[in-house]
């Protein structure tokens, strides 16, 4: 199982973040490697992404089922691979400034801060991911947090994702997808906040 989490803080109120997040179409194209998605109903959608696995790029098709719309604080969902053996779940948690802890938002335990080596690996794969996605620049160093100016913070968006590749090669695939997921989680949380701020 690969778990990642990224928190981005915003100068906008929690309601603005919720307004944006509750409509999948708003942020779907911000998902790293996004190709297309199709909504079957409010809770169910199918997605196609391109993602890096070691030195190759694979096209991943999967189903997303939203298990809880608990606005403005939380959206939880589950994933199931269509063309790859994979399951997963994720949460968008939104909180107002200062009440980020102990709010019961994170159904997924945040992973311990990884050691230096893991961070280095993440940075390597970040390079690969940006290459594949046509973004040749690498981003600032990884800190698993994207912050607005401290005084201006009014809300926080935390995106958590947990993926369990299945099949006999699961443990290896797991190690291969993890660094790309780290980047994906960071991008999504950061980009959502950036868009909400820009539209404010």
């Amino acid at each position, binding site marked *: 199982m690969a778990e990642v989490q990224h928190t981005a803080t915003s100068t906008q109120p929690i309601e603005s973040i919720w307004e944006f997040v509750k409509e999948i179409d708003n942020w779907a194209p911000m998902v790293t490697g996004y190709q297309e998605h199709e909504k079957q109903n409010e809770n169910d959608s199918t997605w196609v992404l391109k993602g890096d696995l070691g*030195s*190759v790029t*694979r*096209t991943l098709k999967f189903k997303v089922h939203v298990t809880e719309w608990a606005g403005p604080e939380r959206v939880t969902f589950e994933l199931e691979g269509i063309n790859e*053996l994979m399951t997963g779940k994720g949460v968008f948690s939104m909180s107002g400034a200062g009440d980020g802890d102990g709010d019961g938002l994170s159904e997924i335990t945040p992973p311990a801060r990884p050691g230096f080596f893991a961070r280095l690996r993440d940075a390597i794969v970040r390079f690969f991911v940006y290459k594949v996605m046509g973004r040749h620049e690498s981003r600032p160093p990884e800190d698993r947090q994207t912050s607005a100016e401290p005084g201006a913070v009014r809300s926080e968006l935390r995106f958590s994702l947990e993926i369990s590749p299945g099949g006999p*090669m*699961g*443990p290896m695939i*797991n190690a291969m997808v*993890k660094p790309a997921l780290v980047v994906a989680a960071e991008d999504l949380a950061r980009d959502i906040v950036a868009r909400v701020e820009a539209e404010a």
Partner: protein
Amino acid sequence: MSSRIPARWDLEVDVVAVGSGLGSITAALAAHDGGKRVVILDKAPRLGGLCAYGGGEVFVPNSRYMAKIGKQDSDEAARRYFAFLSGGFNEPGLTEKLLATYREAVEYTADQAGVRWEAVDGLDDYYYPDAPGSATGRYLAVEPFDGSQLGDWQSKTWASSPHFPPATHKEMYAWGGLANITKWDYELLGQRVAEDQRTFGPGMMGYFVKAAVVDRKIEAHVGTAVRELITDDDGRVVGVRAEKDGKDFFVRGASGVVLGVGGYDHNKKMAMMHEEAHDWNSATQPYFHGDHLVMGAEIGADTASVPTYNLAMFYGYNIPGEEHDGAPIFRSSWECGCPHAIWVNEAGERFTDESFYKDYQPRVRQWNGRTQTQDNVPPFLIFDTNYRERYPLGSFMPGMDIPEELAVKADTPRELAEKLGIDADGFEKTLARFNEGARDGRDPEFDAGHFSWSNRLAGDPSYPNPNVGVVEKPPFYGVKLSPVGVGINSHGLRTNADAQVLHVRGHAIPGLYAVGISAALLDLGNGYQSGTSNMRAITWGYVAGRHLGGR
């Protein structure tokens, strides 16, 4: 002459090593150790070349590593084996030099560059024991390489190959070989990925890149494509024009330039012409365009070729949606070496020992002079549910649905044949005949499973004949295969025994060297087998680097 000396060089060194596969990097190391200032330029965004995508097997007869695993060998036996492999299509002077130098070159990489080689116990020569001078234990591979030793270069090397998980040969055999790939120790392999422990080609190139850019601090530029050779008024190659970040980048190599840019797998037109194929795809990264042939032609370099039909042209497929650096990646189909799988042509007939690619390569290309057709193109991979229950197709593990774009599925052989567009009567007869022998682990028609190399590499050791099993359990599956190059091409620049490129008039072009696949395979002749390509890349790189260093 198309070349021009620029008013100003962007970088001035003694030796420009173009490409960062084994050939160029070994030349860079040897030239550096001979006192030369060297730069390495590679078109790809990462160092290591195709060598870092491959199996990393290096064929070195009578090495000290063989002795360590208790295997006997002799130079005389090696000589006889290379003569057998060449089929008489080699150039004796080049073969002599190769045989006289490969051990020294490989030992240099171990002793001076820190490459940790070991002999692969139990991996036989392709034609062992039939061929004169053949032996077992001649293959070398590296011990796992720790990617973190590369420092800043860690992210700018090929850390993994899509063709090989990060296991060692020893582990692969202990875990039952490729056929048993679903039961390998993926906890361990996951750990290797997480810790960037590299094996096979990525591991091998880790050592070479480290020796060059970390230990020797040789300057290297990725994303830098060399476009033109620059000659002086006497026709001497004195530098290159490269392109970096969309701009010209002129690099002077006062002593010379080494071209080790591989072949032309991603120049479809060139590949189809030279390899005499109607279509061409590749397992390589998309950076091989035959630039050596173009740049060489501009200054009168001669080319040479070995017969196309015996080279490493595989057949395989692209898993829908699978790419590398924006180009579809093709996988060669090793599935046909497993039990319960065969190949047939459009007539529904088998035509080869599918488990031994040296047998299928010439047969698949066979030309029918009466009908003006290649009767075995395209081949179709056929397997049954016995196969599907045990072995994967590419990344599709047993139990997973295979997408229809990749494999056709049917309940009966007749229905499968109809769906694939092959002759149903012929196919049914073929299956009946094949299954009759396969029931006893035999293949009277094509003798699949004859070579121990095929048994070990693709076969299932739990079978009496590791490469043969009945194809009879529905549903049945069929995959139409396409030609897949692995970067080992028939045409290259003609070189001499100092690795210098020859002019069409016969003399050596001063300052120009070609190594690896960029140099025509006249040293081997008709004799490619796995490991000889890497071995000759190291050897000619060593020869070029020493020649440039004045030795």
